[in-house]
């Protein structure tokens, strides 16, 4: 979990930085737009993912950067394998290398989804 959470705040920070540059704000200026104001250092820490943004700060950041809160949030990797990897490593007594391989094999997307069921149905129709 630790890695995922860190990545989340790093991604969020990168988005804040990108949007701030687009608005031609300095870190200082962006900090002054929040209520209560935050320091330049605080914005710098948010942008590097070292500081975890509070919910109300997130809303204010989005407003200052002229995006919706949703746009500001990093995409959560839905169906990603990080959480599967994480769980496997807790539940199985295996070295990391094997856990990674197993997670890859279990979670990789495929196109082969047609079922035997459908096939037999089609055969019957003929």
């Amino acid at each position, binding site marked *: 979990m630790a890695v995922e959470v860190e990545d989340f705040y790093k991604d969020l920070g990168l988005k804040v930085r990108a949007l701030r540059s687009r608005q031609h704000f300095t870190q200082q200026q962006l900090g002054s737009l929040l209520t209560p104001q935050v320091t330049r250092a605080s914005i710098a820490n948010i942008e590097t993912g070292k500081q975890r943004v509070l919910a109300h700060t997130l809303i204010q950041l989005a407003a200052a950067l002229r995006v919706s809160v949703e746009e500001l949030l990093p995409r959560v990797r839905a169906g990603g394998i990080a959480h599967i990897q994480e*769980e496997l490593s807790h539940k199985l007594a295996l070295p990391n290398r094997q856990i990674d391989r197993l997670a890859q094999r279990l979670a990789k997307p495929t196109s082969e989804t047609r079922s035997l069921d459908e096939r037999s149905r089609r055969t019957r129709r003929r």
Partner: protein
Amino acid sequence: MSAAAARAAAERLLQRLNVNSAPVDVDSIARALGLRVVYEDLGSDVSALLVTSGPKIAIGIHKGHSKTRQRFSLAHEIGHFVLRHQFEAGEHVHVDSGRLISARSASASAGLDPKEVEANQFAAELLMPVKLIRMHASRFGEGPVLEHEVARLAREFAVSQQAMTIRLSTLGLA
């Protein structure tokens, strides 16, 4: 959901997929249900696992175990899937370390999760369908199935002798 309902679900599935001969091709059944099956080393104490999140539901089977145990493990995980078992909230991977335990034995009813009992019942019915067992056993004539006949049935259904013994006694044939 009871053990009987779990067995009925397995029977319906076999019927739907037109399975009427032994040994039951449990890999094909998994594929027919859209499940991915992966054979890998799962470490000690784990026979199989079910991944319930991600792009596709997937089953991991310990490749180091005997073929008959692998088949039972796969049938067991298919059972969890077909019976729509809900595991702990937020859990993405359900791990089974289980060895085959008779649902009738005291050790099974005491302390074993009902979901596991159901999945075992499902697996027994899937791999050793009552109709096919009766058909095969009828060759041996009247009376209880003898030991060498149990061994033969186990080979024909590609299950362990232990599993077959339990199945036959459940059906009152041994």
